[in-house]
């Protein structure tokens, strides 16, 4: 094991495997539901504490990978256990470890059946999620990326709503089908780039345009399904609606980010020319997500479905920013992902609070909730406003940065767009209005109005446990909205490096390589 980090300690490995080791311990030695809950909470909190030094000891001035670990894993194929984080991936690890704690607290009372299995599934899921963001070897990345399907399949299928079997099988097959092409692309790149799976080596290797073109498409299918982008988004509303509350929180908070992270870690730096070539394509799909999906969200009768569609629309903003190749836009996209991780997670938790009381997610079944649950109404108000991107909330920072970045795109992005990117920014800006429409309208119908329904009259307000897990989320949303600098600082150097990679063509180097040393091409039969 080689370590290259300031702590001289395999902190990333510990972050990845602590949840699974804890899960093993709980599986073997902890008996009784209440004990399992406390033990799982302890494991998740410990994991969160282990990930904190990543933030504290992170060097902001550099785009280099930090806290690196290297160990040979499968020498026959030069697959290595290579870990490291930069300013792009590090915030997601903290996001994951924090949201897992919140998920486990939120499930305290509402999961009463098979508590142990539920907690184990969440802890194993945490391992795979943190693994995805740490991996610097493409096969290791794929390993965690796919392994994530097993716990998620069980979480939705065992503890989900009444249509859960359909939703979970759809989720499983959709994402599996999306990612298999990525595997083919990785295998082809392995031979092309000289028998290596190192992500950093892939970033440096000059692929010619034909290669970039096809690999980009293979990656795009994998990442677009995960984001999800229109028109491959249909698994998400089903999965979100049927998943238990904490499942929705993890889906919206982390899983969707994996797709966009894939664009930032793979497509942009490895395939800059293809990424530029496909800018119009991604922009059009993103705008469809922003405008059309927002309209779809407005018409939803089910609260979870509405938030699911709202997530797709917000992720449209993220993909738009990603493919503008400017510092503001990409940082805005990254910041948007983190902000959305808190806001969407909190909104799902709000729905979960309501669902625990009335066991329905239909908007029409509520109304006048403010009369019986004033504290809850205030909390939900904060997150609805954040979802609308009101100034002072974290989402505002993200949206304004993406819009500014889109208004002033890089030359590389503008060169491939038929119209001025200003028009793109103007269309994207309609989202500000549309998200206000669907969010506030939902809030009005659920919270305000007369207290006419007897069922609603009997709803108790939030208890301390429920209030407890909203507090950190409120603080974070407001803190990031008012003072986003610490997070932006972390991203700054890495994003700058990424922009440089994404706007520097690899074609010259590829041509030079082809003339200097004609490599034996893979003859595609």
């Amino acid at each position, binding site marked *: 094991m080689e370590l290259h980090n300031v702590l001289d300690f395999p902190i990333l490995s510990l972050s990845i495997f602590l949840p699974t080791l804890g899960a093993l311990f709980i599986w073997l030695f902890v008996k009784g539901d209440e004990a399992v809950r406390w033990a799982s909470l302890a494991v998740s909190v410990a994991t969160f504490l282990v990930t904190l030094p990543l933030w504290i000891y992170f060097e902001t001035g550099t785009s280099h990978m930090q806290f690196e670990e290297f160990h040979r*894993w*499968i*020498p*026959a*194929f030069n697959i290595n256990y290579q870990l490291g984080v930069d300013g792009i991936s590090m915030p997601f690890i903290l996001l994951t470890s924090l949201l897992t704690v919140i998920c486990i607290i939120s499930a305290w009372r509402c999961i009463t059946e*098979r508590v142990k*299995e539920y907690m184990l599934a969440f802890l194993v899921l945490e391992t795979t999620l943190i693994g995805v963001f740490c991996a610097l070897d493409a*096969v290791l990345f*794929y*390993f*965690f990326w*796919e*392994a994530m*399907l*097993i716990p998620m*399949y*069980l979480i939705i*299928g*065992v503890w989900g709503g009444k249509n*859960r*079997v359909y939703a*979970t*099988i759809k989720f*499983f*097959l959709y994402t*599996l*089908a999306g990612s*298999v*092409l990525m*595997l*083919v692309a990785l*295998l*082809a790149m*392995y*031979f092309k780039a000289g028998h290596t799976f190192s992500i950093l080596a892939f970033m440096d290797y000059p692929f010619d345009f034909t290669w970039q073109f096809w690999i980009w498409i293979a990656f795009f299918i994998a990442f677009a399904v995960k984001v999800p982008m229109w028109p491959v988004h249909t698994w998400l509303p089903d999965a979100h609606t049927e998943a238990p509350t904490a499942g929705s929180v993890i889906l919206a908070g982390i899983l969707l980010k994996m797709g966009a992270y894939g664009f930032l870690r793979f497509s942009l730096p490895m395939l800059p020319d293809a990424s530029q070539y496909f800018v119009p394509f991604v922009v059009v799909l993103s705008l469809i997500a922003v405008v059309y999906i927002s309209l779809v969200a407005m018409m939803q009768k089910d609260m979870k479905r509405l938030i699911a569609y709202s997530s797709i629309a917000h992720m449209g903003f993220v993909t738009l920013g990603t493919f503008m190749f400017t510092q503001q836009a990409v940082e805005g996209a990254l910041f948007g992902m983190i902000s959305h991780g808190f806001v969407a997670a909190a909104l799902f938790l709000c729905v979960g609070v309501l669902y625990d009381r009335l066991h329905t997610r239909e908007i029409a079944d509520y109304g006048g909730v403010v009369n019986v649950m004033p504290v809850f109404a205030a909390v939900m108000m904060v997150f609805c406003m954040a979802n609308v991107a009101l100034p002072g909330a974290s989402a505002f920072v993200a949206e304004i940065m993406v819009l500014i970045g889109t208004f002033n795109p890089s030359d590389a992005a503008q060169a491939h767009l038929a119209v001025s990117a200003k028009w793109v920014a103007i269309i994207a800006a309609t989202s500000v209005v549309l998200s206000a429409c669907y969010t506030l309208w939902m809030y009005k119908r659920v919270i305000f109005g007369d207290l006419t329904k007897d069922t609603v009259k009997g709803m108790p307000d939030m208890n301390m446990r429920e209030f407890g897990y909203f507090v950190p989320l409120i603080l974070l949303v407001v803190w990031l909205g008012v003072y986003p600098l610490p997070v932006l600082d972390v991203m700054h150097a890495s994003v700058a490096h990424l922009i440089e990679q994404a706007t520097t063509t690899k074609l010259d180097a590829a041509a030079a390589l082809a003339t200097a040393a004609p490599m034996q091409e*893979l*003859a*595609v*039969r």
Partner: protein
Amino acid sequence: MANVTFPFPFPEHLSALLPEILVAVLAMALLIVDLFVPKERKALTGYLSLATILVAGVALMQVADGTSVTAFYGFFTLDPFAVFSKLLILAGTAIAIIMSLDYIRSEENVGEYFVLMLFAMLGMMLLVSANNFVTMYLGIELMALSIYVLVGYQRDTLRSNEAALKYFILGSLSSGMLLYGITFFYGVTSSLDFKQIGEALAAAPSSEHTAVLLGLVFIIAGLAFKVSMAPFHMWTPDAYEGAPTPITAFMSAAPKVAGFVVFVRIVADALPALEHETVMILSGMAVLTMAVGNLAAIAQRNIKRMLAYSTIGHVGFVTLGLIAGSGSGYAGMLVYLAIYLFMGMGAFAVIVLMRREGIQGELLDDFAGLAKVRPGYALAMGLLLFSLAGIPFLGGFWAKYAVFIAAVQAGHVYLVIYALLFSVVGAFYYIRVVKYMYFDEARVPFDFSENRLMQATVALTAMAVVVLGIYPDPLMELCRQAVIGIG
């Protein structure tokens, strides 16, 4: 050859065959011993068979020293490739015998059952050492004849009889085709030795091309039948469904190893001159096999039938390694077959363990609610199924990885994309079983076999797929070493 010293004069040739000779002698002795074993203690024969396999394994390790040796004037070869596949065959047979100990208790004439399995194993051991069409044919027939009888072992069951008859008729037909193909090659090259045929074919005049092609087609058809490659897979679902479940497990693993190993030897040694034609035919069959196996499995309600089609699907994936050829392709096939041996047989072992109201659990519905009643079994079965689906952190992922990377290296990118899409189709019917186990409520009370050895087998196979999934390197290295010198 390793310096095995014997207290009596022992011909040099025979020492390479020591494991086979031991199995043959001990199996025949067992046949006599069995006469004196009382009816209610027939499991003893089973334990003695296990001991025989152990003896054969020890003998194999004694005579194997990493070199390649031929004996009997080139009729028999013992190289690392043969040794590794023999170990797989021994392991597969041992697991199948353990599964049978409890299952077969209710039947009569149990003794022969175990001896027949030993003879089938002997046939396979011979088969993987064949570098000559005569040895190959001997091995195939010894294996097949024993398995025909085993499939029809439940004499009072119509299903079992039908399966055996179908398998026997189609099997004989395919043996005929194989022999017919061999005659063409013999006619053109006047040889039965794989390597000599390969050299002769490379030098054969083009006027012989039609005869050679005919021979090639017949030989591939005959071998394809043995490994159930579409369109010669028809017997598989019926035979798998009708056979006693331990025999189904046995058939899904060990004979496939033997069949593919001899397939590799023929393709690598005898057919390099016909590489283009071989790859073309095999590609077509692989495409068909993956589609038939994975699509038809979706429609099955009987889990044994479903796993039969799933085996066909996996055969399609393994064929990719054969198409890719070269060291990495053949090593990939070995990785695949080794991992499949564990996950396939483990899944069948769970089926054997499950009984509902005295009947073996065979319908998918029978798995409903398993996770609540027996979380341990459900977890093991779940791991095995996710592994069969090829999801990472389980061995099945690396099995697919090993053949796919070889196929990409050989330039068959489209085939790999096709295979991966069908592996997604395959994932559907595997996770559907997980759905029954974990998402549904139990309808009928369970009644489990509590055989300790069986439970240990299930636990060990499940653990094997996890361990191989997390650290596959030793197996991959072993397989890479085993194929050095092949092709």
